[in-house]
């Protein structure tokens, strides 16, 4: 039903994990149901933070929620 939009920013193309499930790539818009999720990236583990908790709501296709990961070790 109603969808929300999320963009996970990272300097490289990397797989995005939502609640542990691989779900698309960084720097691409993802379409998900609203609610709370845990966002992380796929290997290698050279990013921070380890995970980001989000409450995905009140977005639109043109104004998605953005979550940013940086390169670097934990």
């Amino acid at each position, binding site marked *: 039903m109603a969808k929300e939009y999320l963009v996970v920013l990272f300097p490289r193309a990397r797989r995005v994990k939502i609640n*542990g499930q691989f779900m698309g790539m960084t720097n691409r818009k993802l379409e*998900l149901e*609203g609610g709370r999720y845990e966002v992380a990236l796929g290997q290698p583990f050279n990013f921070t933070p380890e995970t980001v908790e989000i409450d995905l709501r009140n977005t639109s*296709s043109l104004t998605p929620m953005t979550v940013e990961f940086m390169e670097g070790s934990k």
Partner: protein
Amino acid sequence: MKRYVIAAAVVAVVLAVAFAGCSHYTVNERNPDFDAESGYRFDALDAGPDNSDSLFICLMFSGGGTRAAALSYGIMEALRDTVIRVDGRERRLLDEVDCISSVSGGSFTAAYYGLFRDRLFEDFREQFLERDIQGRLARRLFNPVNLFRLASPYFSRIDLAAELYDRDIFDGAGFDDLESGGRPFVILNATNLGADRRFEFTQEYFDAMGSRLDSYQVARAVAASSAFPFLLTPVSLENYPVADGYREPWWYKNALEPESWITQRYNAAKNLSVYLDKENSHVHLMDGGLSDNIGARAVLDAFDRGFIRTRINRGEIKRLVLIVVNARTGGGDTLSLSEKPPGLITVAAKTATVAMDNYSYDSVAGLREALYERVQAQKDEQACLDLLEKQCPGSVTPVPFAAEVDPYVIEINFEAAGQIPGEDSRYYLDLPTSFKLNEEQVEKLVSVGPKLLKASPRYRCLFKVLEAEAEGLPRPEECPVGAGIYP
């Protein structure tokens, strides 16, 4: 003489007690170890050499007894006979089918194709469509041995039906056989009477029940899916503690927060939580039509948070085609012609069917709206890009989706038969719901399916777009993205 009669009576009673005592429904097997990568789940199935995810097709087969099974069979014939070119290779549209969600009568066609593939076109008519299944069930019911078995509280009419389907139609096949065949993923839908909710025979549901689906008979799942209330009885399953290492599906975490109660995700989590609550030690299933007579809800769930959603977000699906085969009938409104209020039986029948028909309509409308929402998001994005290009060339552009999706929702129903030369929709709309139709009725149902599919404007658009793409031509103007849903 009197002694013989007494002896015979004693033997009969002993036999009755013995048969009744031994008779028990088939119990689903407990699963000791959880494995998220195996079992009957979409991601564990082999796609096959002729199936590309870029063209992703799901079929939905409604309930409606042999009428529904025959109409869906006709659609399968049409898909078999339609050759397309995808990624430079010729293939049958049928080989591109990725999932089939079915209810009741439609479950016979879906399960048979899932198990036996093209054998469907060789013997399904003889094995099921043209058989008097009702008569066979009745004969089994009145067999003296079975009358004794039915005395057991753990064995009932549905178990006799499942035995018949298993022996005469599905050759004793289990879900491991469905799994080894790869795609399409066949979702057989039933209704959980205790929870008043839809139930599907997939490993995801069985994981929550701590059970293995691979060793369960397909015939029993089809029997549950088509267990028409009153005529048949529920199929029962054990709800075991979850297996070691069990993990809920990814979307389940945080989905049950009270403030989310109005969302579909919350509802899906509630659906699964029924089986995670081990106070519910048993699950009693009846006709899938009681909770969704179209089979659309399973596909909508896959689109919202399942195997379709993950593939859309990964940019793997370019064209999403949903074909709803709806064998709904509908006699004319005769009640409104009478001054006299309808009687008890009419009211009882209407109570069962009115809600079901309206829910089915809403399910298909929900599919259309969900897919069109994506089309609108894509249009918004393109409009924004065009505006930026015109007003602020070189400025930062919005982050794109992984891929544009071109969706189609193609509904096949008998009302459209009136627009086909030589066909009368009234004939089909007046057909009964039963497991016994005559040869002429079956023949007409099978042959009208392909005609209805080819007459659908949404299907014609799909075909034109696929042809143009194969020829390297531009997309036909009359079929822009979105025309596969609304004209």
